[in-house]
């Protein structure tokens, strides 16, 4: 147990250096050593390691922050030994003292947040070795579940879900309200494009969206003063006939291509999707298909049919058709400036028209948090913002009539509700990785995180704050979160069996007790195996309920012996 410090070490700028120096000095003068925990869930191993995550950019900034917190706590980790060589790479556990943090990053593990090929799918492929990576990947940042399509065998990837999110469709409802300039460029030749997503049709003023609710001549529009009906819900009901499919996936005559089909539906009973075209094509952004956000949204718009990605009907105009990064519309300002450069006589109107007629999708958590990421600045300095579809109704971000909220995300009733994961491989995870991932999942339940001496806050509060406030309004999931959001569990090892039967020269080990015990962590492929007659190192190659095979055959026979299992390499 760590004793609480009562003094501050000095100015913030020199705090880190001073802390290291002081800790090592006190180590030399220490009294008796503290008890050092090992094994699950903290996985302390007594030496410094570097671990690396890669993949999702939805969670990039968040994981960078959590990694920083973990490494900060390592400043008060073990006292490093001057010997053996290389110097200061192992822990002098005998030098632990009252200031040593035994609960957080005792081993002073350094965590890298990779910026290589971005995307949840890419992170999983790099973890599985399907794609190359500039540096080894120990865990994948992922905003979608683990998938065997990324190269790892079934069951060898485990996702620890630490956050909950949703992916609403976004539009740009108020664009061009400040412009009102006639556009001359194709495809809006000669017309002014107003806030089409708000129900603007060519006979309306470009500021019709500012009209009070109920001011429209169309009784079906209860939101503003436009003559059309605002596009307020994205439905995937009806398979290939759904609005979502027809927007994103259809390539035949059923495809919805014009904003009027969505909004110019009159005052009668014309359904959304069957309105009259108004000459304003829908510009669908071309989002990175390696993205977990894109994958989640693609699953929704497929509507139960086949739709590989959301980019089938992407715009060739917006950003000149190039792939855009997820969760950021400020890049569209750069796109608009390039798509309609200074030589364009009606540049302002064309840029506004392009953005006004665009559709995109966004992490709900990032959208709520990052104002800059949802704001577009045009070349003339005017700004506009993305809107969750239907955000002026009782169901913001509406999908199939369901709005995004903490409740609908947690119970998965929101159609694009999703979990944010860190994914590891059971057959290759290192103890230092297990320690970091367990640190994220535990909510001060199995062990108490220490106090961040920079802020005075408990590290666990800071992890919660990072997840729920600073880098997204995601909902934190912990080891004690109830089902169906209970995947953030400690990485532990299977219990030992005392009735293992081993035969010299055979790779088979049997046990009547069994290797898949109810309520216990099961033995998995890749586990380190120890026992009499089992060579070192030896690992689980295959496993069933009562029999497993080793990667190397036994060297002695024994019946009823104790066989133990451990994480892949407890010394890493």
């Amino acid at each position, binding site marked *: 147990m760590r004793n609480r410090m009562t003094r501050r070490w000095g100015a913030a700028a020199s705090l880190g250096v001073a802390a290291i120096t002081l800790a090592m000095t006190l180590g030399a003068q220490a009294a008796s050593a503290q008890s050092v925990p090992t094994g699950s869930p903290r996985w302390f191993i007594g030496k410094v390691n570097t671990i690396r995550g890669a993949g999702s950019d939805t969670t990039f900034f968040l994981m960078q922050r959590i990694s920083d917190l973990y490494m900060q706590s390592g400043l008060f980790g073990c006292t490093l030994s001057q010997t053996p060589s290389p110097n200061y790479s192992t822990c002098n556990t005998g030098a632990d003292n009252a200031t040593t943090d035994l609960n957080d990053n005792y081993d002073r593990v350094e965590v890298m947040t990779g910026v290589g090929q971005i995307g949840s799918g890419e992170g999983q492929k790099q973890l599985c070795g399907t794609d190359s990576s500039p540096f080894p990947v120990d865990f994948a940042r992922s905003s979608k579940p683990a998938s065997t399509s990324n190269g790892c065998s079934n069951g060898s990837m485990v996702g620890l879900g630490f956050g909950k999110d949703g992916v609403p469709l976004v539009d740009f409802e*108020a664009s061009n*309200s*400040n412009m009102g300039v006639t556009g001359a460029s194709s495809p809006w030749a000669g017309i002014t494009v107003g806030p089409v997503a708000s129900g603007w049709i060519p006979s309306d003023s470009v500021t019709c969206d*500012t009209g009070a609710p109920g001011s429209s001549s169309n009784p079906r529009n209860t939101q503003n003063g436009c003559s059309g009906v605002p596009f307020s819900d994205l439905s995937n009901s009806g398979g290939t006939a759904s609005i979502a499919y027809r927007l994103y996936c259809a390539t035949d005559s059923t495809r919805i291509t014009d904003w009027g089909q969505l909004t110019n539906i009159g005052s009668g009973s014309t359904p959304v999707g069957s309105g009259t075209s108004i000459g304003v094509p829908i510009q669908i952004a071309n989002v990175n298909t390696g993205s977990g956000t894109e994958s989640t949204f693609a699953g929704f718009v497929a509507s139960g049919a086949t739709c590989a990605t959301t980019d089938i009907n992407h715009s060739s105009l917006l950003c000149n058709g190039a792939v855009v990064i997820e969760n950021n519309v400020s890049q569209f300002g750069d796109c608009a400036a390039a798509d309609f450069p200074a030589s364009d006589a009606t540049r302002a109107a064309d840029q506004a028209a392009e953005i006004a007629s665009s559709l995109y999708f966004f992490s*709900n958590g990032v959208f*709520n*948090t*990052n*104002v*800059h990421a*949802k*704001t577009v600045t045009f070349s003339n300095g005017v*700004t*506009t*913002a993305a*809107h*969750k579809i239907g*955000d*002026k*109704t009782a169901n*913001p*971000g509406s999908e199939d009539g369901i*709005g*995004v*909220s*903490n409740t609908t995300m947690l119970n998965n009733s929101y159609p694009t509700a999703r979990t944010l994961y860190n994914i590891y491989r059971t057959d290759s995870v290192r103890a230092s990785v297990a320690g970091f991932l367990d640190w994220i999942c535990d909510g001060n339940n199995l062990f108490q995180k220490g106090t961040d001496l920079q802020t005075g*806050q408990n590290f666990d*509060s800071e992890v*919660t*704050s990072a997840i*729920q*406030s*600073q880098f997204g*309004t995601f*909902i*934190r999931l912990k080891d004690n979160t109830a089902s169906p959001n209970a995947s953030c569990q400690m990485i532990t090892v299977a219990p030992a069996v005392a009735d293992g039967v081993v035969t010299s020269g055979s790779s088979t080990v049997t046990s009547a007790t069994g290797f898949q015990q109810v309520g216990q962590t099961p033995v998995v492929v890749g586990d380190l195996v120890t026992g009499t007659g089992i060579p070192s190192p030896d690992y689980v190659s295959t496993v069933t309920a009562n029999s497993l095979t080793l990667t190397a055959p036994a060297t002695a026979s024994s019946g009823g012996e104790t066989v133990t299992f451990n994480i892949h390499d407890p010394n890493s």
Partner: protein
Amino acid sequence: MAIRGKGFTTVSPITRLAAMAAVCASAALVLPLAGTAGATAAVTIPAGNPADGQTFTVTGTGFPTPTADPSGLQILECSDPGGTTTNLPTDNSGCDAISISQGFIGTDSSGNFTTKYTAMLLNSGNSTINCDQTHFCVLWVGQDYLNQFTSGPHAFSRAFEIGAPPAMTPEAALVIALPVVAALIAGGAYIVARRRRHQVPANA
């Protein structure tokens, strides 16, 4: 209670006071209570303490116009120990954005807005702050809680304790109650006026 005065029957002062009290009570059900403003912004919420999950109206004045703030406003819950203005948070670490409003909150051309907000019980089980029966909280309303918590346009509501008495009147109940109260008052006034018209002079 009617008092027979000289020549006429009049309404007693007690009856007049009762009628006035009814009018004041119905007004109090909707009378918003203002919070603490930034430079010019101000936020008001109804009287009483909301229950967990209760939706109520939030109104504001003095915020940026749509041209200046196209992304709209944000509302989230922040800790306010003791419910005093001196303990209002000075940065966003005293708030939890898991309580953030999900919809778009836009202002009119004068910087005013009216919107709905749903209260969320916060405690150690789901948050870094406590907003419950024994811990005061406030609503922070502003443009960018992450980067401009106090430097940007913002205001705090008055303090409240989620689930504590006195309860905030559900707005659905108000929709029903207010017309009823108004009808009772109007009916009472009619009866009094009618009695006066039909009063028989004492010497008839």
